């Protein structure tokens, strides 16, 4: 069981940093927002690995759902592509 965790945590860290770099370099703003929500989701799993269940629940409820919808409404009312 702990062998799986030794491989899982570095794998999640690599996917986290890759998603963050993708969110910053992408020119289509809608895909950048989806990258931000993937970062929030993996952060919630990492908080659970660090034995903090309250913080994991808060980050999953607020960072994944509400931040993404507020960004998407703003993108719909302004430009979609960054020039």
């Amino acid at each position, binding site marked *: 069981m702990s062998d799986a965790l030794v491989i899982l945590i570095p794998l999640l860290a690599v996917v*986290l940093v890759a998603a963050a770099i993708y969110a910053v370099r992408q020119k289509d703003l809608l895909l950048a927002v989806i990258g931000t929500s993937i970062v929030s989701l993996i952060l919630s799993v990492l908080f659970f690995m660090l034995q903090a*269940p309250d913080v994991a629940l808060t980050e999953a409820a607020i960072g994944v759902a509400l931040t993404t919808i507020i960004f998407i409404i703003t993108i719909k009312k*302004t430009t979609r592509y960054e020039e």
Partner: protein
Amino acid sequence: MIYYITSIALILIGMYAVLVKKNLIKMIIGLSLVDGGLHLLFIAIGYVDNKTAPIFSKESLTAADMVDPIPQALVLTAIVIGLAVTAVALAIIIRLYDHHKTLNVNKIRELKW
């Protein structure tokens, strides 16, 4: 140790987005990434090896085998306040776009005179 390096990488990537990018929404995405990196750094500092979550659900758990509860209480408040700041910033961006018709920071500075 890998938690420290991941959180420092998130903070640096977010700061790069705020300093270099020219679109206003990209800057707010960068601020959101900096927030996430800071919260991970706080919780990683408060972790103790081989201990468990700070909830006394069974009678056999004592106070000697739990992780530090104080950083978790601080980060709980910080996540909600991060959401509030992001929401107000995006409302101001919607009003700026209605007025200037562009979201490029160089052009918004030019239109003043």
